């Protein structure tokens, strides 16, 4: 595993990222833009499921409008996140927050695709179950962000 991380760090992008003094902060700003879009839309979608906002609109309507933005935000985050990772792969390997973040990210994506969307679309799902799924989804996405921020601190 460590050998793999050494290989990541030795990629052309990784080398370039470490040599340039603007690469990392510039990509980080893009990462923040993606985060804003991802968390903002996750918040609106899940608050709608919790009946806390946009009550005049159906869940399907709000989900239809937020879903493309949510995945756009997630894609921007993951693409820019990969670039950041390549410039400091070894540091990440020894960083406990990084591993928490990856675990939480995988959980958030799997939960969103496998549980959240299915529950929302199934006609017989109880309102309580949908609300539970919304709370879990919100908690997971915010935990990813918290763990990500913690990479710089631990």
């Amino acid at each position: 595993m460590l050998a793999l991380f050494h290989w990541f760090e030795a990629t052309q992008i990784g080398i370039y990222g470490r040599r340039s003094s603007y690469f990392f902060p510039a990509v980080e700003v893009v990462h923040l833009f993606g985060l804003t879009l991802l968390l903002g839309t996750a918040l609106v979608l899940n608050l709608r499921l919790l009946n806390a906002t946009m009550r005049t609109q159906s869940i399907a309507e709000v989900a239809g409008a937020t879903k493309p933005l949510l995945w756009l935000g997630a894609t921007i985050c993951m693409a820019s996140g990969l670039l950041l990772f390549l410039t400091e792969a070894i540091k990440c390997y020894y960083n406990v927050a990084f591993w928490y973040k990856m675990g939480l990210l995988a959980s958030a994506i799997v939960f969103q695709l496998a549980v959240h969307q299915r529950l929302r679309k199934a006609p017989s799902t109880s309102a309580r179950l949908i609300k539970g799924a919304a709370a879990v989804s919100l908690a997971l996405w915010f935990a990813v962000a918290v763990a990500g921020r913690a990479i710089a601190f631990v």
Partner: protein
Amino acid sequence: MFILELCRRIQATPFATQLLESQYAWLIIESAHVIGLSLSVGLIVLTDLRLIGGFRRGEPVSDVLGQLRPWLLSGFALMFVTGGLLFVSEAATVMASPWFKLKLLFLLLAGINAAWFELTLGRRLQSWSHLDPPPAAAKIAGWTSLVCWSAVIGLGRWVAYAHT
């Protein structure tokens, strides 16, 4: 310069020193600031997109704005309180940074844009809320807000890099 002197005094207060030297308080406040950003700016992006006509077109602008406003304002309160505390802890340091001054400028522009929107278009929301596409003035307000807030985020990140 008066402002710089004031910032020096703020940074020299025992409260500011304690904040900066505390092991956890500063990290927690800083994290809350960055993640609270997604709460407030994320919702601003969605309302801006509605003004431009790129999100929930079928729903009246007044609905989207009214429904998201309480969440948006709570996000803002979090941003202002945490941002204020971060500023106090390093007032003179950041005030010396040109990036920070630019950030304040864009923050001010975003505020002026929002106030202008509220006082003009916001006053007669019902008369154009259903229009699709939205009026040009609403689109301009939406784009201005998007640009200003993107700049605030970018410059905010740059402040931290410039002085480390």
